[in-house]
C-alpha cells in the first residue's frame, strides 16, 4: 500500500516535470521543499523542550529551582526517590491511573460494543453524552465536580458525603476517560465481523464463552490502545484534578503546589522516566510489526 503511494507520487512528479519543465516545475520543487522544511522544523520544535527536560534531569542546581544549567551529574538518576513527597505523589498518580483506566476501559468498551453492534433507540442521545464531555473545557468540569462534592445541599443525588481525596480524583478521572475510551474503541471495531459470534453460538458456544474466546481477543488491540490512552490522560491531568484533590497530591499537583518554593531535578527525572516507559509501550508493537511479513498485516487490520 505505502509502496504504491510512493510509486504513484514518483510517476506523477516526473510526469509534471517532463511535460512542463522550466518555471512551474522548479516553483513546484521549491514549494515541495518549503513544505518539507516546515514539517521538519515543526518536528524539531516539538522536541526542543523535551531535550531540555532530559538535560535538566542531569543538572546539578545550586538553588531549589532547577531552571538554570549548572553542571552535569548522575546523582538525580541515582537517587530518584530523594524527596518523599514526590515519591508519594507519583505513587498516588499511578494508583489513580491504574484504577481509573480499569474502570473507564470496562465502561467505555461496553458502551462502544453496544453502539457498534446494536441498532436501538436513544443511540443519538448516548453519542451526545459521549461527545459533550470532550467539547467541555476542563476548567468547567473541574469546577462543576467541585460544586458537586462540596456540599450535600448542592448534590442531592450524591449517595455519599464526599471527602476530597483518592475517591473524588478517581471518580473525576474515570468520567473524563470514559468518552475517550468509548470513542477510540468504537472507531476501531467498526469493521468487526459480528457474524463470527453467530457462528460460535451456532456451534453451541454459550454467550459468555463466545465473548471471552472470540469477541474479546479480536477487539483486544483496540481496547489496549484505549486503555493506554486513558492511562496517559489520567497520569497527566492537572486542570480537573486540582479541583477535586483536597489534601492528596498527584504528581502534577505536587509539582504545581511546590513550584512556588522549589522545583527539584527529580521532577525532570520522573517526567523523563514516564516518557521512556510510554515510548517503550508505544513502540513495542510497532517494532514487532517491522519484523512481520507484509502478508500477515491484513489479518491484524481489524484491531
Amino acid at each position, binding site marked *: 500500500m505505502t509502496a504504491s*503511494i510512493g510509486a*504513484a507520487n514518483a510517476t506523477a512528479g516526473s510526469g*509534471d516535470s517532463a511535460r512542463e519543465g522550466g518555471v512551474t516545475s522548479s516553483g*513546484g520543487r521549491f*514549494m515541495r521543499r518549503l*513544505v518539507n522544511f*516546515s*514539517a521538519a522544523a*515543526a*518536528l524539531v520544535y516539538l522536541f*526542543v*523542550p523535551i531535550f*531540555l*527536560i532530559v538535560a*535538566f534531569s542531569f543538572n546539578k542546581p545550586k538553588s531549589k529551582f532547577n*531552571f538554570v544549567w549548572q553542571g552535569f551529574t548522575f546523582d538525580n538518576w541515582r537517587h530518584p526517590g530523594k524527596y518523599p513527597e514526590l515519591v508519594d505523589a507519583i505513587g498516588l498518580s499511578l494508583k489513580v491511573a491504574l484504577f481509573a483506566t480499569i474502570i473507564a476501559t470496562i*465502561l467505555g468498551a461496553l*458502551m462502544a460494543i*453496544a*453502539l457498534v453492534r*446494536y441498532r*436501538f433507540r436513544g443511540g443519538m442521545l*448516548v453519542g451526545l*453524552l459521549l*461527545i*459533550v*464531555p*470532550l*467539547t*467541555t*473545557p*476542563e*476548567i*468547567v468540569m473541574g*469546577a*462543576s*465536580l467541585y*460544586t458537586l462534592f*462540596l456540599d450535600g445541599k448542592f*448534590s442531592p443525588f*450524591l449517595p455519599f458525603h464526599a471527602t476530597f481525596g483518592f475517591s473524588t480524583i478517581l*471518580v473525576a478521572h*474515570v*468520567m473524563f476517560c*470514559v468518552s475517550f475510551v*468509548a470513542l477510540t474503541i468504537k472507531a476501531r471495531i467498526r469493521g468487526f465481523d459480528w457474524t463470527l459470534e453467530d457462528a460460535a453460538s451456532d456451534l453451541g458456544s454459550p454467550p459468555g464463552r463466545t465473548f471471552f474466546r472470540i469477541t474479546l481477543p479480536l477487539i483486544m488491540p483496540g481496547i489496549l490502545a484505549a486503555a493506554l490512552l486513558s492511562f*496517559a490522560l489520567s*497520569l*497527566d491531568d492537572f*486542570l480537573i484534578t486540582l*479541583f477535586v484533590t483536597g489534601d492528596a497530591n498527584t*504528581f502534577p499537583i505536587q*509539582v*504545581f503546589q511546590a513550584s512556588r518554593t522549589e522545583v527539584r531535578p527529580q521532577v525532570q527525572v*520522573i*517526567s523523563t522516566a*514516564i516518557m521512556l516507559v*510510554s515510548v517503550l509501550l*508505544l513502540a513495542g508493537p*510497532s517494532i514487532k510489526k517491522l519484523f512481520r511479513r507484509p502478508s500477515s498485516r491484513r489479518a491484524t487490520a481489524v484491531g
Partner: protein
Amino acid sequence: MAERGDDGKKRARFAPYLLLSPGSLWLILFFVVPLWTLARMALSSKPSRFADPTFDWHWSNISDAFNRFGPQFYRSFEFAFFATLFALAIGYPLAYVIATRGGRFKNLLLGLVVVPFFTTYLIRTFAWKTILADDGPFVSFVRWAHLIDLVRAVPLLGHWLLPSPDRILATPAAVIGGLTYNLLPFMVLPIYVAIEKIDLSLVDAAKDLYNNGWQAFRKVIFPLSIPGVFAGSLLTFIPAAGDYVNAYYLGLNNRSTQVIGSVVQNQYLNQNDYPLAAAISFIFMVIVTIAVLIYARSFGTEDLV
C-alpha cells in the same frame, strides 16, 4: 428451540441498554448532574467567606462576573484563537507531509509527534519557561537579531503580543506560544487522519487535470481535509480557552496575561467565592458552546456535534 430463539431476541432488545447503562450512569452522575449543581451554585448567594451558599436566584452573579472579569473572558478567547491559528499553520504542513510523503516511516513520524506529550504537561511548560527566561541564550539571541522589534513592528498585533521590547516571558506572545506547543498534536492528528483517508487516485487525477501541484492541493486535497481541520481546531481551541497553566507559568499571570481559567481557579480554591466562580465557569461554558455551534454551522460538517 423456539424458546431459545425468543430468549435471544429479548436479549438483543435489552442487551444494548444493559451494556450502555454503567458508563452512561457514570457520565450522568458525574458530568451532567455536576453541571446542574454548577448552574444552581451560579445563582446562589454567599454573604461572607465562611457562610454556606444558599440558592436564591441570585442573578447578579452573572452581571458581576461580566463586570469584574470581562477582560479575562475576552483575553482567553483571543489567546485561544491565535493559538489555534498558529497550531494550524505549524501542524497542517506536518500532517500533510507525514500523510502523503511519510511512506514507510508514517508510524514512526506519528510516534514522534506524540512522544513529547508523554512528559508531564506542567513540566513541558516549565521547560518553555527556561527557554524564554529573560537572561537566557534564546532571548539574548532574539534581541541581538532584533526579532522582538520585528514582531513589534507588525501593525495592530505587535505591541499587544510583545508589550516590552526586551522580554518574551510574561507577555501574551509567551502564553500563545505555550498553548500552541502544548496543543499541537490535537491539531496534527485529526488533519493527518483526514488527509490519509483521501483516495490518491483523486490526487493524481487532479494533478493531470490542473497540471500543477499547487492547484491540485487547493482544489482537491485541502477541501477533503477540512473535516480534519475542523476537528483539530475544536480540539485545540476549547482546551486553549480554558487553560491557565500557560498563562500562569509563561504569562506570569499579570495584567496583560491573566485568563478566565485562573480567575475561576482563584475564586473557587483561594477566595472561596463559589457562586461567583460558578457563574464565571457557567458563562464560559455557554460562550464556548455557542462559539462551537456557530463554527460547526459555518463549516457545514456534521461529523462532530
